[in-house]
């Protein structure tokens, strides 16, 4: 019971969009689908929904090749939000629910529930083109969830939502997963990914460059990050072949009441250096408020993997 992509390839004309993509997303997981703009995320999602077909390889859901029949049972939030502009929102939700085989009565019951949950009840009588972007997106999410899909494919579900709505959506995610549903979503907000996902993958130019749990991906770069907050001079760091001038970028001064300034600094652990030695140095040079050896943030990992430099 899972979604599987087996050596999927797709080209548009001469342009290779997806190259030998293998993925397996177990049932009941929230899966983050990351990649820079134009990496092929939307194309992959469209192939999962059988909107376009791979040139070679297979997309399987519950060991069957995806088709319109499976796609209908999925919930889909396309990247390009699409509602009938002049159709009343309430009718629109009911229309899509009924297309997926719900009875009118059942559809209305569920629309009432989700409209209440997303605080869009009073929009039901409005036309879609009268709604704000955020509200349109909430309506589209409701449409995607109404027929209780086993698998939800959400293309950037958080973009354009205010913090209150982001929370509403996150809660909905958690409840849906509790019910055993699988969610695959893309986002450029790493904090959302870190918070919601069990596992994730990163693709770049159609190629898979990382996959696994959030923790394993963070560790995969082999980088260790030292986060240090202390009083006193940071000059001792020079002995660990760290360029203070470069670190200055990450350095911030915090006023700690009337006493001396506390400095916070964050840097990559240089190769071959024992972090304990750095801590030793810090203790000798001032008062240590915080010392942490950690993994880089997902944001940093993403930037490293995708090609930028931190």
């Amino acid at each position, binding site marked *: 019971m899972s979604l599987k992509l087996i050596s999927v390839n797709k080209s*548009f004309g001469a342009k290779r969009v997806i190259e030998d993509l293998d993925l397996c997303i177990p049932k009941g997981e929230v899966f983050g689908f990351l990649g820079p703009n134009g990496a092929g995320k939307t194309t992959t999602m*469209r192939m999962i*929904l*059988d*909107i*376009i*077909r791979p040139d070679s390889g297979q997309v399987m859901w519950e060991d069957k090749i995806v088709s*319109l029949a499976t*796609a*209908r049972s*999925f919930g*889909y939030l*396309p990247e*390009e*939000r*699409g*509602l*009938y*502009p*002049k*159709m009343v929102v309430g*009718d629109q939700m009911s*229309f*899509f629910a*009924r*297309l*997926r*085989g719900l009875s009118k009565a059942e559809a209305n019951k569920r629309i009432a529930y989700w409209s209440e949950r997303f605080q869009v009840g009073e929009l039901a009588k409005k036309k879609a083109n009268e709604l704000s972007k955020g509200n349109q997106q909430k309506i589209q999410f409701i*449409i995607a969830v109404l027929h209780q899909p086993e698998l939800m494919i959400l293309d950037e579900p958080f973009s354009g939502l205010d913090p209150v709505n982001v929370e509403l959506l996150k809660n909905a995610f958690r409840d849906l997963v509790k019910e055993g549903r699988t969610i695959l979503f893309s986002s450029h907000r790493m904090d959302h990914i870190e918070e919601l996902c069990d596992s994730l993958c990163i693709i770049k130019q159609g190629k898979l460059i990382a996959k696994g749990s959030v923790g394993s991906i963070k560790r995969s770069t082999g980088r260790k990050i030292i986060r240090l907050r202390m009083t006193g001079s940071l000059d001792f760091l020079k002995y660990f072949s760290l360029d203070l001038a470069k670190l200055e970028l990450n350095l911030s001064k915090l006023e700690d009441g009337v006493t001396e300034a506390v400095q916070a600094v964050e840097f990559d652990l240089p190769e071959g250096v024992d972090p304990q030695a750095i801590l030793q140095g810090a203790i000798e040079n001032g008062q240590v408020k915080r010392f942490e050896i950690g993994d880089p943030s997902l944001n940093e990992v993403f930037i490293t993997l995708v090609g930028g430099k931190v």
Partner: protein
Amino acid sequence: MELLVLIQREYVERVRNKTFVVSTIVGLLAILVLSFAPAIMDKIQSADKSQIVILEQTGQVTAYLDEQLQTKLPNGERQYSFQSVVANSTDWAVQKKDLIEKLLADNTTSAVLEIAPPGAPDSVVWHSKKINLGGDSAKVEAVLQQMTTQQRIKVSGLSQTQLTTIFTPLTFDSQVEGLKASSKEQQTQNMMLVYILLFMLYFSLIAYGMSVANGVVEEKSSRVMEMMIATVKPASMMTAKILGIGAVGLTQYFIWIGTGLGLLTLKGKGISLIPGMTLQLTTIEPLYLIYFGIFFILGFLLYASMYAGIGAMVSRPEDTNQAVGPMTFLIIAAFMVAMVSLYSPDNPWIVWLSYVPFFTPMVLFSRLILTDVSTIGVLLGILDLVVTILLFMWMAGRMYRVGVLMYGKVSWRDMLRLVRGR
């Protein structure tokens, strides 16, 4: 099930639309006005009374005109009334001018006729304040011409019987052979039916075909398409759109034709679209009405599926009008061919063209009503249409589907390539 939901959306959304409501009401008003038009025309024409004053000595001309020109107005009154004024004063030449002026000054007299010499008029002057093209003066002239001719013949010494013989018109009967209609009236009726089909199809295609194309483009430009493709078969989508819009059109026709027929029953007259040609529904062969229904619906479906295909190739609403241009030409071409077929339904070119799907609905219908077409020929035409419609709907669906990937201009070659693959 899904098809029903789709059709229902298409239908309900359109019928609720302001454009539909307004156009239906405007149509109804037009029908009301048209059905009262004859009565109104009667009223207007009835006000067209003319009084003609004749200046003569004997009163002979007045009596003759009064007897010969008995034209009745729609309200039953006589159109012309004649009054004679005796012209025998001594200083007539002076008086005449004043008299004519006086007579024409008040608006009851529309013309003054000056006759000279008395008896058989050799020269007549028509005095009027308006230039009357082919109207009253021409009629009066014709009658006076006749009077003079008769008088002159009489003078020459022919008897009344000889006169009657000379003026008896020859009989001219036309007997039409080889056509289905047994009489000229019936042929006119059949042609009328073809005219109605042609105009209804033409009107529907221009009006509703465009809304099929627009409907498809709207779905593409608003990006609902992607949701739809992930939910339903593109062919069902296209079928639903065409049937839904077709049903909207039929609703409008039912409202209009129902009202029209209702008014006609009230008045008890036939439909007169073209003056002089009247369609009596009771005298039409029922089979023709069935063919009418079949060819109207198939014709609509055929062109609508082409409009849908064009809609599927366009991604911006602004481009739709330009893209449907060739369609309009095609419809006009079909209309022209059908017009030719009305007068020469057996022309070999017309026979061939009547099996070209684009022309079949109009041309084959016209042929089968106006001339002999074998049952197989008719069935072949219908089959040919159904196959083409299905093919076009399927193609429109495919084009719609590949449209997800292509926004902006799509060339025909790209389209063909994509329709084949995915």
